[in-house]
């Protein structure tokens, strides 16, 4: 699934009234800035709704990217 597809999927889910998400990242070994943007958008919408989202199974390389970009500070991870 590309970041564009994920963005569209999330749009649909938000429109359907879903507001809490868990992302399984165990098979993700790289995330680009476009992917980060989708996560950021989702986090902002979740914040606005007052609900929660979190990411599970983050691989070391993706964790490093989250750390460098400071995303670790705003997104809940397990």
């Amino acid at each position, binding site marked *: 699934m590309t970041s564009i597809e994920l963005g569209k999927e999330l749009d649909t889910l938000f429109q359907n009234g879903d507001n809490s998400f868990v992302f399984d990242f165990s098979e993700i070994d*790289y995330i*680009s*800035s*476009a992917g*980060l*943007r989708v996560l*950021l*958008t989702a*986090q*902002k919408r979740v914040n606005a709704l007052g609900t929660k989202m979190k990411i599970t199974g983050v691989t070391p390389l993706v964790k490093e990217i989250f*750390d*460098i*970009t*400071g*995303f*670790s*500070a*705003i997104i809940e991870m397990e």
Partner: protein
Amino acid sequence: MYKRNKLQTKLMLYFIVLVIVVAGAAGTVSRIAQYRALNDHVADSMATLAVLAAKQINGDDLAEIKDAGSESTAAYLEIQATLRKVIEAANQKSLDEISGLLNGKDDKEVKRVKKRLKVVYAYTLYSEGNKIFYGVDAYPASDEKNHSTAGSEVAAKTKADQDFLKANDQIFEVLSGKGPLVSDPHEDEYGIWRTGAAAIYDSNGEIAGVVGVDASMEFINEEGRMLTLNLIWNTVFLLVVVIIFAVVLSRKITKPILALNEGVKGIGSGNFDVRLDICTGDEIQDLSDAYNTMSERLKTYIMDLSETTAAKERIESELKVANSIQQSMLPRIFPPFPERKEISIYAMMEPAKEVGGDFYDFFFIDQNKLCICIADVSGKGVPAALFMVITKTLIKNHALLGLPVEDIMTTVNNMLCDENDESMFVTAFIAILDVGTGKMTYSNSGHNLPLICNSGAEFDWLSCKKCFVLGGMENMKYTSSERMLQKGDRLFIYTDGITEAMNNEGQLYSDLRLKAALNVNKNLGEEALIKAVRNGVKEYVNDAPQSDDITMVVLRYNGREEEQLEKPSFI
């Protein structure tokens, strides 16, 4: 024109070959059939002739004729008259006339006459023991050449007799009562002969001898030749008809094809307006209808394509302008501050698309403070480039206000968050270096860790406090760090276009390779160092397309101005 002839010629050739093969086959078959029929017919006729003659001959009389002396008897003459009638009836000529012709002086003429005659000889034969003797001959004794004397043995006197003897067995068969038959063909100097033989009975019902009737086979061959000649003429006539037919037919077949050909050629040269009107009611019409539909669609398609191409070209030319505007926004003249000996800088930015989201910048805030920054907007292309312009402007404006780096980050972040519906964000590294003291304060908002190289040592990662990206979320906290630079220290900042450059196997260039490349080339000058790193990345990705903007800046601190002078001027 050449091709036009080719198709027609081919069709004609096919027709002609077909006719020759068919006519040849039919001719051969009919020739064989006719030859056989003729042969059978001749055999039948000869057997009939021999039987009819044999019935007229009195076997008792024949038994009396055993020597030349008996040739003058009434019995001999009566039998001879019967045999004469056989020859005369078969050839519709009197025997005297035939005899005259056969005794002509010219051998060739005689041969020719023999070929034309149907029945040439008629005679009787009788046997004694295992020998065969001549009895009565149709030709009178006066015709010495053709007369066979009564009582003379059919022996190997002449070549003709020798050949005739081959038919002996068959004559014996008749003599022993096996009924009339016609011998197999036998050959002599005058041609090929068959002998019809029928038994002559005496009053006791015993076989007294046989009637022999010789016919030339030459006329059968003659018939065959006539037939062949006829066939050739027929074939020639057929060929002429077929050629005319082929020309007309092939023209009829090729005409629509040639029209199609012209139409297709037209399309090849860009003329889509040719429409074909072919009503042959066959596959060619289907083809022509398909052609018409195709050229109609092609015309529409090409028109659409031209419009799209024009639009694309317009956008491309606009992007080219945008690219040059973007490039001109970045400081590109090196050295940028020739009068400032404290620092050396070299930088480069290479967008993956026409315009990119990366940028670098450096400028003096005041006499001593140099601001240097690098940033990477999320995404690529025009949206990233537009966001990059805003970010660059905001950073520079706030830096020039003299704000500390963490405040620059905080303010720019909040301003970028305003009305940022697209959730674009920027990772940035901003450093302010006091060239007088070497003190560098810096802040990193989610950007790749810079590398620093102390004079004489290796490049290593510059530790930064982690802060969130710019434009991501409002009211985020940004912090700064400090580091004292010594003379000869170098700072290398870059964007992830370097470390995340991908080769054909989908593997990243990685931080480790970057660090290694920098250390291998650490003794090079600023410009050479950056070019060496760039070439290293190029070699690594090989022919895989550049996936992200690539930006690098290297700064060398040369120490305070006073330090650079061996003998300070004020002393």
